[in-house]
């Protein structure tokens, strides 16, 4: 019993070391980073963070990322909820193949899709907009959201639907009043994973934006590989990229454990 917790704590320490190291680096001035290895900042400074918060480029990058990620979560969930409901309630002709086809889209190599995406969105006049990135990220988020939500919905007995219809509920009212609250945990989990995968995606976000919707993941790559990389600044930006997700995790933490285990797969 005790040994188990010691191993678990050791694992969490290993898990945190890289994150600690980034926070540590972000609180040091550049010359301390380059000159010597220090385990706590000796020359403590918030300069790196101050620079990010006062720079319009960094501020707009963070804002762009948040906008397209939220847009993606909304589109993914709106498209996935009815789809997952159909898969969980009815076995129609081709439903198994369709479910597998949806999943295969998650495997698509983003690296190659970026050129067709660029051409397509140029034609649709949405290149370099938040909508472009949000739609492109649906490629891997809709399959995942359908998958997760289908699991949650299958865990809810069909009798609930039938009883509601016998009681005279119309479909939209049934969905809003009865079904929606029941699958709320599933929505939380699906939203968390869509948020995560959209937030950390780099290839498509980079290919589909120039200036108007340039996300923070792209701003971060600027200057890496060149001499005199501003490690402190990059580390500080890296720390800040973890903040929105950590907030989301905090809100869905109670649902995280409940999901997945139900349903088809």
């Amino acid at each position, binding site marked *: 019993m005790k040994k188990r917790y010691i191993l678990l704590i050791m694992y969490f320490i290993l898990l945190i070391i890289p994150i600690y*190291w980034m926070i540590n680096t972000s609180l040091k001035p550049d010359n301390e980073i380059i000159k010597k290895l220090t385990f706590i900042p000796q020359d403590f400074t918030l300069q790196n963070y101050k620079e990010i918060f006062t720079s319009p480029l960094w501020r707009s990058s963070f804002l762009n990322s948040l906008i397209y990620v939220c847009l993606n979560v909304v589109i993914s969930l709106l498209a996935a909820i009815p789809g997952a409901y159909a898969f969980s309630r009815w076995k129609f002709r081709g439903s198994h193949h369709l479910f597998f086809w949806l999943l295969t889209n998650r495997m*698509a*190599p*983003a690296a190659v899709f970026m050129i*067709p995406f660029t051409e397509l969105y140029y034609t649709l006049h949405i290149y370099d907009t938040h909508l472009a990135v949000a739609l492109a990220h649906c490629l891997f988020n809709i399959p995942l959201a359908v998958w997760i939500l289908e699991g949650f919905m299958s865990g809810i007995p069909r009798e609930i639907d039938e009883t509601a219809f016998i009681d005279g509920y119309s479909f939209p009212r049934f969905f809003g009043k009865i079904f929606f609250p029941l699958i709320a945990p599933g929505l939380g989990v699906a939203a968390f994973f869509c948020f995560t995968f959209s937030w950390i995606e780099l290839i498509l976000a980079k290919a589909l934006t120039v200036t108007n919707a340039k996300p923070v993941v792209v701003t*971060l790559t600027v200057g890496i590989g060149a001499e005199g990389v501003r490690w402190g600044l990059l580390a500080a930006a890296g720390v800040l990229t973890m903040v929105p*997700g950590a907030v989301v995790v905090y809100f869905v933490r109670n649902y995280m454990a409940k999901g997945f285990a139900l349903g088809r*797969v």
Partner: protein
Amino acid sequence: MKNRGWIFLIPALAVMSISAFIPLMTVINYSLHYIFAGSAPTYVGLENYVEVLRDPAFLSALGRQLLFSLMVLVVQVPLGIGIALAMPKQGPAVALCLVLLGIPLLIPFNVVGIIARVFCQANIGVLPAFFGLLGYDFNVALDPIDASLTIFFLDVWHWTPLVALLCYAGLRSIPHAFYQAAEIDGASPWKTFRYVTLPKLRSVLILGVLLRFMDSFKIYAEPLLLTGGGPGSATTFMSLHVARKAQSYELGYAGASSVIYLFIVIVFSYIFFQIMTNVGKGGAQE
């Protein structure tokens, strides 16, 4: 009634047609043409596929990728199950564990790459200093094995929490009565795990294995930022190889190689899916 399912799927299919179907068709179209900047594409049939399959660079990237992906599964899945089993079942520590597990998942790929660079940088990094104390010259820029292992452990660090979260969710859904029954029957801890826990984890493990397998094929930013796919081509995995070709506008080659890539991932995923569904069922009958 039968068609009702399709009506509900319209929103998902509409979005997927823009963000999946049309691009996929375009890629397949590329793969059948010889495309050279400034001139009209010419139809060449399957020539691009032949060229890709004969290219030693593609084949070595593929071999490296398969080894990497299998290693990812072999290490991350048992480790994830172990972590989930070790986690407390109730109390305030649960929320803490879940949030800690969630944090690595939220770090963008290129930030992971930056962390790796900071860790491995020759003069300022922790890892060279640590291995220096042990008398080993750790250098990701020169030693292919150091670079490959760094990428691998980085991935283990980044994604094992996902498997652990999924398994923990699965464990929570096992009724306590199952364990009590096993205890009354005098089952050893291993037998309890094998015949009670593992079959019940099947559905989440299928999800975990497939997600990790598919996503491990997409590893791109970490090797790019750490060493640019080097030293040599030691960390040039499939996505990196294909993306390079696409970026240099060898669209025929890139299209053909990504169709092959997609085919391989789908075949393997399908095999895993079949094996895991059936093995689990066999276990339940024993």
